């Protein structure tokens, strides 16, 4: 039977590095770019007898994440040792949380604009929020580099605060997984808890996926996918996995629990370890760290919950009258949202401001490889002034696009100055325009008569001729008003 006849069940485990200054259990600096093994100490090197201490900011950021995602918090939260033997983890155990994580339950809303572009028009579960199991706080491992004959290890990354966000098996397609990752990233950035860039390894994702034929059957064998470095790779890997498993199931080959490694260049996955090799982590409570009472931290963090992207989006619709879609794109990035809000506040036509930000400004920034927060050429108030000039009829939209905006980008000057310098002001002076209109009416009596007899549409032909006479500088809105007045 075809893949579409199987019920697909997907759960995601997302690791996000937190934006703290120091590591989770020691004071070593967190961050990239330092010489290898220069940001290390006995704690993060796993020296016997070294004592870990909890980083308060990491705990706060995890609790804040829980608040943004509607989680609950166990009254007491504690840390445990997860034992395994691997060279990037020098203690031979990872300090993580087992039975009392900082956050439980909650959900991640799937924003429409976070789905892949090609499916945004046809979302099977619009407005769905994927349920979460838990969020716990642990530490990152060192960085291994594999060479032909050996492996080298840099422990600068070891001990970086890492938040693990575990979803319920509540995702059905690769597209939902894609939307989940993008929506989650936007929320984490809005809260300032993680930079959450998958391509930079600040956010990583493992996928669990199983297939079965009916809802009545228990979940199929769980296949874990690793080495997924972007939301697009997650989507591709899930498609591949659904095809592979359904083809095998059709052929009568049952699936066996295992972990597979995705190769995004080859577009295929291969078995990495079987169930027999599954780790036996032998968790036990960490004796060197004391438990945390969550209530006071939750109370303190409530004040820091930011306006979330979907809340901001709703406000943009209400306050500025932009479309739901435009609002969701404008609110998807903190800096873009701030820019738009500044430009739209007090503008004569806020929808037009949204169009200019989303089309002209964003494509200009893209061409110059500039992020909106780093761009200085067109400050928000200058864009507002440009749109106001169009709206009040001083310049046409065409002039703004072809002449004024490019000059603003190039020189950083205001729209008003450029219009003056270039002599672009449209003729709205009715005296001059009336003369043009009289001339055109005289020269086109047949059309004029048609308008007089009630066919107002025919006046458009006359507007064109007035525009020609004014060498394109007349304001068409003003022209049509004069013509209709004269031809009443």
């Amino acid at each position, binding site marked *: 039977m075809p893949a579409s006849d199987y019920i697909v069940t997907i759960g995601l485990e997302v690791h996000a590095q937190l934006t*703290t*200054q*120091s590591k989770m259990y*020691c*004071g*070593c*600096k967190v961050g990239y770019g330092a*010489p*290898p*093994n*220069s*940001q*290390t*100490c*006995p704690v993060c*090197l796993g020296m016997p007898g070294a004592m870990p*201490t*909890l*980083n*308060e*900011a*990491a*705990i706060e950021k995890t609790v804040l994440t829980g608040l943004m995602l509607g989680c609950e918090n166990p009254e*007491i939260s*504690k840390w445990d040792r997860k*034992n*395994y*033997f*691997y*060279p990037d983890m020098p203690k*031979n155990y990872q300090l993580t949380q087992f039975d*009392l994580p900082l956050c439980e339950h909650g959900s991640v809303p799937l924003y429409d604009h976070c789905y892949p572009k090609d499916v945004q028009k046809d979302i099977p579960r619009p407005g769905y929020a994927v349920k979460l199991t838990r969020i716990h706080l642990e530490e990152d491992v060192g960085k*291994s*580099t*594999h*060479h032909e*004959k*050996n*492996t*080298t*290890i*840099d*422990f600068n990354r070891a001990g970086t605060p890492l938040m693990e966000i575990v979803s319920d098996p509540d995702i059905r397609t690769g597209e939902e997984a894609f939307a989940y990752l993008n929506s989650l990233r936007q929320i984490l950035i809005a809260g300032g808890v993680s930079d959450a860039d998958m391509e930079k390894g600040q956010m990583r994702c493992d996928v669990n996926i199983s297939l079965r034929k009916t809802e009545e059957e228990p979940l199929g064998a769980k296949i874990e996918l690793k080495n997924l470095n972007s939301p697009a790779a997650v989507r591709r890997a899930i498609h591949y996995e659904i095809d592979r498993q359904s083809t095998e199931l059709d052929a009568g080959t049952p699936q066996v629990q295992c972990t597979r490694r995705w190769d995004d260049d080859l577009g295929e996955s291969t078995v*990495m*370890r079987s169930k027999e090799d599954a780790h*036996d982590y*032998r968790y036990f*409570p960490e*004796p060197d*760290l*004391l*438990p*945390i*009472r969550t209530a*006071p931290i939750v109370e303190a963090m409530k004040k820091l919950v930011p306006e979330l992207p979907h809340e901001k989006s709703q406000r943009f619709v209400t306050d500025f009258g932009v479309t739901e879609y435009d609002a969701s794109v404008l609110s998807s990035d903190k800096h873009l949202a701030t820019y738009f809000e500044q430009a739209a506040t007090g503008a004569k036509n806020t929808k037009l401001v949204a169009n200019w930000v989303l089309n002209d400004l964003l494509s200009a920034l893209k061409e110059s490889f500039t992020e909106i927060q780093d761009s200085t050429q067109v400050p928000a108030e200058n864009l507002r002034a440009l749109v106001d000039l169009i709206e009040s009829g001083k310049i046409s939209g065409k002039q703004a696009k072809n002449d004024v905006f490019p000059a603003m980008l190039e020189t950083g000057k205001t729209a008003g100055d450029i219009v003056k310098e270039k002599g672009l002001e449209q003729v709205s002076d009715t005296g001059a325009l009336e003369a043009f209109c009289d001339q055109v009416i005289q020269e086109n009596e047949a059309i004029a008569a048609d308008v007089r007899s009630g066919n107002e549409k025919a006046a458009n032909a006359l507007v064109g001729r007035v525009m020609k006479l004014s060498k394109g500088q007349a304001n068409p809105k003003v022209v049509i008003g004069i013509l209709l007045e004269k031809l009443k």
Partner: protein
Amino acid sequence: MAAAPESDLDIRYVADLARITLTDEEADTLGGQLEKIISYVKQLEALDVSGIEPTAHATPLFDIVREDTVKPSIGVDATLANAPQKTTDQFLVTKVVE
């Protein structure tokens, strides 16, 4: 060797998890010693703990945290001083690819 006390300890499995290779003789010796440790700790099972509140930690203390401030690290030379094998600035280990 004295007969080891009864337990479900599988010394080969434990050694495998720790990536330690044992000779038969070592397995016998260490297995016996571990069995003794486990049976010693197992005496705790005889205690009646019904009616005692479970705790997350043996010490009745909570909320011991530190501020998120950077402290000096120990430096590359000290970090690598104990490395059994190293390159100029990294630990060198047998090739591990999962």
